[in-house]
Every structure is written in C-alpha cells, then in structure tokens.
C-alpha cells in the first residue's frame, strides 16, 4: 500500500468508526459498532431510521464534525449510509 493510500484509509477508518458510534448511540442500537455496515441504508430498509432519528443525527454530526446539514436541501442525500456521511465529512474538511 502506498503511503498516500495508507493515510487515506487510516483517516477514513477513524471517521467511519466515529460515525458508527454516533449512529449506535443516536438510535440506541444494541450492536457492536462494526456490525453497522458502511453501505447499509440508514432509512427505510437497513437501520430503519425515521425522521426523528434523522434530526438527532444531523444535530450530532454538526456538533461533532461541524457538518452543517440543518435546513440544507442536501441533508437527505448526504445521510443515506455511513459511507455517504463519511464522504461529506471528508469533503467538508478537504480530505477527499
């Protein structure tokens, strides 16, 4: 693995694990964080989040990562999976 790829994966994994913990706590899931798959859908099927969970998640993402999705027309397309959230955090911080 090249150093650049190694660095990228390391920061991606760190964010992935932090977002998983937020999701687990927000939804009070009784699972280990690694049981939340990065591409699992958050709404409808998958984790089965509802609009109340979504509001709480958006607030948490703002508080922890400074990801400003409150009132954003892109909120529903950003929080589709853990991976799409991590993409948005990395893009906002210029890491992608």
């Amino acid at each position, binding site marked *: 693995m090249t150093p650049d790829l190694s660095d990228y994966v390391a920061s*991606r994994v760190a964010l992935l694990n932090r977002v998983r913990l937020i999701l687990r706590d927000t939804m009070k899931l009784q699972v280990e964080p690694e049981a939340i798959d990065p591409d699992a859908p958050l709404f409808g099927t998958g984790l089965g989040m509802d609009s109340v969970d979504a509001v709480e998640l958006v607030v948490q993402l703002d508080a922890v990562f400074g990801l400003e999705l409150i009132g954003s027309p892109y909120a529903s397309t950003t929080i589709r999976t853990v991976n799409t959230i991590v*993409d948005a955090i990395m893009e906002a911080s210029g890491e992608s």
Partner: protein
Amino acid sequence: MSRENEYRSVRHGAALSRMDHVGLLRLRGDDAIDAVDAVCSSDLWVRDGRMLQSLILDERGQPVADVYVCPDDEACILMVEGITTDEFAACLARHADPGLEIELEDLRPEHELLSLHGPYAWEVLSRWLTPDIIGLPYLSFYHFDRGICFRAGKTGEYGYDLVMRSEDAEDARRELLELVRSVGGAEVSLGTLDLCALENGFFSVRHGSVEGLTPLELQLQWRVSARKRFPGVAAIEERRAGGVSRRLTYFVARDEVKTGDLLRGPDAPVGEVMTAAFSPGVGGVVGTALLDISVAHPGIDEFFVPDRDSATAIRTVSSPLLLNRSLVVDPRRHTYATREDATHPPLWQGSLP
C-alpha cells in the same frame, strides 16, 4: 426495446414489469409468524400491514433467498427470490417446530405479480387505483378490490408491487402499460431492474456468486439477528469470531470490467469483481468487488484490472451511486406533465477514473 430506453423509463418516468421470478406464498394460522421467524435471519419486528426485508441462509451462512415478510392479519405473505416454493417448504419442515399450526399456500397458480418503478410510478398508480396511493408509506401494503398493493421496490425510485388474481392481471397489465406510456415509460426487463438495483446498492441473489460469502462480507448485517438462532447462525458466529477478511465494495470504471476479473493494487492483489454492468446513468461500468478488508473503502483510485497490454482502472465509491430522481420528485407538488418546470440535479454526480 433497448436497455438504454428501459433504463430511462425506470430513472426518468415509470416502468412496468412482470415479476414471474418471485415466489408468492402465504402462511396461514396462529403460528405463521413464528414459523417464518424460524427460517429467516432477521428479527421479525414488523406490524400487520408493513413489510420487512430478510434473508434465508444455508448452513454455511450464505444467502439462498431474499425475502419480503408481510404480516397480514392471521397470516403472513412472503415474496421470495432465490428459492422455489418447494425449497421454502422443505426449509420450513427442517427448521420450524413441527407442532406449529400453519398452512402453506402457494399463491402463484392463481396470482401474478406486476411491479411499477420510477419517479412517476406513483402518478400511474394514483390514476389507475386511487390518489390515496401517494400516502402509502415505504414498506407497507394494503388490500384493494383486485388484489394487494405493496409499496416496495429495489431501484431507488418509487416502487409498487401488485399481487393480483390471474384473471385480472392481463387487463391490469394492459391498462397500466397505457398509463406508463403516458409518462414516457415502457415495460422493462428483469435485467434492467437488476442494473438499477446494483446502482442503488440493493442486494440481489442474481448479482454474482455468493459462494463462500455471508452477510458479514455482503454488508447485510442489518438483516441478521444478534438475538435469535436461525439457519446459518453458527457459521456466521464462527466467521465473526475469526475476523472478516473481505468486504463487498462498489466501484465505477470507464472501460469494460467483467465479473470474475481479478483486481490489483499498487503492490499486491486486492480482490475480485463480483458483478459489473454498463450504466447509462453513470456513462461507464458500475459494479461490486470483493476487496481485502484493509482497503474495502470508497474513494480509492489505485486499483486496476491487469491485462497483458494495459490496465483498466476502477474507482471505489459509496453506495447508493445515484441521486435518484424520486428523492426530488414530490407527489404533492410535481407531475410528469410539469417535470420541465422543476430543476433536477444530475443522476450521477461523481466522475469516472
């Protein structure tokens, strides 16, 4: 009709499809849901009138069937892909308590399944059935005079499955097709629906082999109970204890990449292509690859399919790949006729390697 036109129906208008490959079953009796619980891998926390996606696994923990579980009064309707009705009955006989009071009914001889997909599928159905259909929540169903309407779908667009008596199905198909054409749509093949499912990250028993794979590698842990025993659970526990070494990851490519192609990184092999298909929406190939867990992440441009003369690069991406039009079409404000008045972002916002 070309794949591209079929694709356009699903992604921009409405599409009708016969779902002859889906098994339609009804379990009757007080113990119906307990019997389904014994064979499915998920916790069946689902109310009457709602649907839940689950799996049936074999003893190795590999998915053999993709199942919608739909409790309906004192029965449970099942839509099953991947195994036959006889195989499902055998699975019940092997795993459900023989003392349970159940009666398994194959709905197929007397019923057919039609499905509608697309950002304007709701408009077709509101004209054919009732305007109230736009209020039907995702993963729920209700009975109407000619059958049952399920709000489901695996394309990322508005989707509805209609289970109807066979004597009504042909007339319904003709009427629906006329309405589908009025919103720029058409009848589409299973291949097109499978492509759309792939683009949106829906599991399909037809997306490549699952040989040696469990829900842990397939990113389907949300369909696996952490509380109950079910067929294949011992294999999953063993795999989890030993550590998962590979994970399914989505990718795009500019050039042809085929199922079974081996993938390399800068200094070592990293995995294998599980399924790949050309996507008109992306303008390139979309697919899944089984990658070493250390690099099974989106946003990586360093993997390629080696060839004698050249190398085909892939880019790993997050799922779902598309910004579906159904996310921005609001049945309370939009119609197909006024679609040009609304601004729609592009379906694909990424770029190819």
